[in-house]
């Protein structure tokens, strides 16, 4: 059936009408609100081509509430005139009437009344004419009857100034028959139902059209954190390259493993309270491998294994201090130490990706925690070319073209060779050569990932890595770290390559500070210079 009584009426009248009808007129004829007719028009429009409706806007004069009152009961001035009897009325009494004030001045200017100020009981109002013609009321009644056009422009504006009239815009529809006009409209179905399918009734029904411009309902799903997705990707690459994952599930580390075993001198600025979170409780490590500690102590203070050492007084108390690890290299040192205990020596490739901590005040560019990536290769006969080759493969898998030969690549790699570097103190009895050296880059991918903005807090990310570089033929109990210490400062004893042209040393991405400085892969010191 038709969509409600108004729509039904509309269709019937439209059938009889010539051409079409106006929605406002129809509302007047049916004695319903105009809005009800508009609703019926819209619901009929939704059915397709049953009707056609053209939007028209017309301007119309309407009475204000005050105007309606005056149309009904006369203008204020007329009412004042009516209330003055032939014998006159005291002005004060007149003023108390509802129309008194406005009506008095209007009636005065119309010269309908006069005031006798010399009367004995104060000013008195008298009629000056016998009868009056309430022109204002008549005009308002014309407007009320929809005949506003009979008034002159000047008359209308005078009434409008008195706030008796307003001009309103009326939006109406001119409704005409559509191509599929019919007075018997069946209601369209919203959706296909199981009943319709089983009864087959769908064949006789029409269905409401879909609004394909609307958005779908978001799926009810969970999400992985974008930064951790990147972690998974890097992890996958290392696994594809045959690297075994090192355990890194120890945020708390002793200074020994975090610094001393990596040949970082005890006065190194990275060991400063400003840079490293030290612990109050438990303040000190309970156990250290004492035979190894002795070798580390000797190499720091006196040298050994070919190294001059740092020649200072090495203190065990300093090495015992617990901290939140400042790099995952401490975990690599432990892993290599364990490897060295295994006999015979077995070549190894290790990696890790985990959190590290720096004593920072949180702001837009500094976090106290971030992730670090690390890789190590330990074998005989490795060299710097191998380190660069491993890095190239890693970046190729990241779909970043080789950094080592192209400074214009979207990352800045620093290969800090090498020797002796990192992973201090690993005893490799079968004379293997450990690969040391480190690199650090500011890749675009993790930075972008961090910028995706995960819900809530986001731990930053620092892609840094450590890959192998060669060592010595001799058994080394303690190496000295060539490549970077954890705060960008290389451990003493390594001369680094210069910075590539056009790249400054800038702070890194969302993930905390740059951990190792951006040295570069170029040999000619003249590139140190570039025109401003």
């Amino acid at each position, binding site marked *: 059936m038709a969509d409600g009584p108004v729509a039904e009426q509309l269709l019937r009248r439209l059938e009889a009408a010539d051409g079409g009808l106006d929605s406002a007129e129809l509302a007047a004829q049916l004695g319903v609100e105009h809005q009800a007719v508009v609703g019926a028009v819209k619901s009929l429009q939704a059915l397709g081509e049953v009707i056609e409706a053209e939007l028209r806007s017309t301007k119309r004069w309407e009475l204000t509430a005050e105007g309606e009152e005056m149309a009904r009961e006369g203008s204020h001035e007329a009412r004042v005139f009516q209330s003055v009897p032939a014998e006159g009325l005291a002005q004060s009494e007149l003023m108390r009437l509802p129309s008194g004030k406005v009506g008095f001045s209007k009636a005065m200017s119309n010269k309908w009344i006069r005031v006798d100020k010399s009367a004995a009981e104060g000013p008195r109002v008298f009629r000056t004419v016998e009868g009056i013609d309430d022109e204002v009321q008549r005009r308002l009644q014309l407007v009320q009857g929809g005949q506003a056009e009979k008034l002159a422009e000047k008359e209308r504006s005078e009434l409008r100034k008195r706030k008796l009239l307003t001009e309103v815009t009326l939006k109406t529809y001119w409704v005409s028959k559509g191509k599929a006009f019919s007075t018997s409209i069946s209601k369209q179905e919203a959706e296909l139902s199981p009943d319709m399918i089983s009864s087959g009734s769908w064949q006789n029904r029409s269905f409401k059209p879909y609004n394909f411009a609307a958005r779908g309902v978001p799926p009810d799903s969970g999400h992985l954190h974008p930064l951790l997705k990147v972690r998974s990707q890097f992890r996958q690459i290392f696994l594809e390259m045959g690297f075994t994952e090192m355990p890194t599930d120890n945020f708390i580390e002793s200074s020994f493993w975090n610094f001393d075993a990596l040949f970082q001198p005890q006065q190194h600025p990275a060991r400063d309270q400003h840079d490293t979170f030290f612990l109050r409780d438990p303040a000190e490590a309970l156990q250290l491998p004492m035979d190894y500690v002795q070798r580390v102590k000797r190499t720091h203070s006196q040298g050994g294994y070919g190294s001059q050492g740092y020649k200072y007084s090495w203190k065990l108390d300093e090495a015992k201090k*617990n901290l939140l690890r400042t790099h995952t290299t401490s975990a690599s040192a432990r892993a290599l130490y364990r490897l060295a205990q295994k006999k015979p020596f077995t070549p190894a490739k290790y990696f890790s990706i985990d959190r590290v901590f720096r004593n920072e005040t949180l702001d837009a560019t500094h976090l106290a925690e971030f992730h670090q990536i690390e890789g190590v290769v330990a074998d005989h006969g490795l060299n710097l070319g191998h380190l660069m080759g491993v890095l190239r493969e890693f970046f190729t898998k990241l779909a970043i073209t080789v950094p080592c030969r192209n400074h214009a690549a979207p990352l800045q790699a620093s290969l800090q060779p090498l020797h002796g570097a990192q992973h201090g103190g690993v005893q490799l009895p079968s004379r293997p050569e450990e690969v040391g050296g480190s690199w650090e880059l500011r890749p675009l991918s993790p930075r972008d990932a961090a910028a995706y903005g995960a819900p809530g807090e986001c731990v930053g990310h620092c892609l840094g890595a450590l890959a192998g570089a060669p060592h010595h033929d001799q058994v080394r109990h303690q190496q000295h770290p060539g490549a970077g210490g954890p705060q960008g*400062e290389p451990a003493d004893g390594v001369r680094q390559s210069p910075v590539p042209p056009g790249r400054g040393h800038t702070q890194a991405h969302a993930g905390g500070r740059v951990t190792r400085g951006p040295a570069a892969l170029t040999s000619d010191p003249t590139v140190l210079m570039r025109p401003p």
Partner: protein
Amino acid sequence: MNYVLNLAWNLMKLYDLLCLEGLVRGLQVFKERIKAPVYKRVMPNGEIQKLIVTEETGKVRPYAVAAVLRNIKFTKDRYDSFIELQEKLHQNICRKRALVAIGTHDLDTLSGPFTYTAKRPSDIKFKPLNKTKEHTACELMNIYKTDNHLKHYLHIIESKPLYPVIYDSNGVVLSMPPIINGDHSKITVNTKNVFIECTGTDFTKAKIVLDIIVTMFSEYCENQFTVEAVEVAFPNRKSSTFPELAYRREMVRADLINKRVGIRETPQNLAKLLTRMYLKSEVIGDGNQIEIEIPPTRADIIHACDIVEDAAIAYGYNNIQMALPKTYTIANQFPLNKLTELLRVDVAAAGFTEALTFALCSQEDIADKLGLDISATKAVHISNPKTAEFQVARTTLLPGLLKTIAANRKMPLPLKLFEISDIVVKDSSKDVGAKNYRHLCAVYYNKNPGFEIIHGLLDRVMQLLNVPPGEDKGGYVIKASEGPAFFPGRCAEVFARGLSVGKLGVLHPDVITRFELTMPCSSLEINIEPFL
């Protein structure tokens, strides 16, 4: 033409490149325009200058070394460079004057022998540099508290009973290291003879600093690259002459360099590369042995591997052939991380969104806000956090997730978050006295508490872990429990394979309020390590 020189700050280890003199010299040697100069210590024509170190210095700043630059010719630029180098060394190798402090004096205003001693601050009185009248050391420490430059160095001696001070034979104060020099002996552009003293707590570094200054600026002496010796008498009655200007010889085999770097260069070529790096080298012996002379300017060379690295830099990393190591290894995942990776994907597939929150937090987060006493948490405490946000390592993942919700309150409900990450607790069985545990935490935040939803997630996780429901040995159950963080009667403990692994429940309204939340919330937190 102007150039901008861009040195990575990790290059600052190369002390000989800290001033223009050294940098230019290094570049010219590299470009083979000049031969590396040989620095010589010479005896004066007259009597040698003496510096006597007294026993009292032992408790505050025990070491001193000195040298004289005779007949030096400063210009404005040279003088500025001289001052700047001292400042750079102070900030760098001198560790903000803590390890070494440098004083330079106009020798012609003084009269040796000099005495380096330590006195009570009230007994030291002199006119310090750029002041108009004499002050006692106590007064100076107060005056310099507001000095933006010097206030950073006061702490080095402030708490000591005796302050270090250097006098000449007439009782004139040269300096009160490491704070300020005397005004009497200040150097100017017109100074002819410069007396340089370095005092410190690290003898090796004091000698290096002295060597660097004199090698860099002896270029401007009448007899270029010569430095006049000073005799230093130590309290143990031994005396030595400084600067050391020691040249050391190292032997490195050419095939070792080739093997480490992955290149094939003749010994002659390698010797040439090293010579260009300011390491004068020649082939000796069997034609494969390279003898390298390490000059006093290259304190960074402490090991043969540093020499190999310099050869690689001079050769040019870009010229090194990349290769992949032949190391054959089978990759293994760290089992705990493997389990984590598997679980997090499935928890996300169950409709929860992964968060990544800080491992460090305030005491309040893990204790007060959860209704616990901090001592009950076994938390690891940080001794030197810069802000209260990082007082402890988290002992539970829950606060991080609740803070994440608080930061995302504008998101449509329900909020379903999870995290699988490490928490830290004290554990005296571990070498560092603390241990990580891998936790899984999930929260459901909505208009209703949704216990059944968080319980459903537990059921799903257990299904994934192949732990069936039931009280049997291999199964899991939840049993009514209580905890200060939970609403009474709405908390259960999770037992799996006979072990208590965690809790789930509806959070207590006090907890919800303390995390600035307004809706009911249920949570689950379990340790996943028993499921490995």
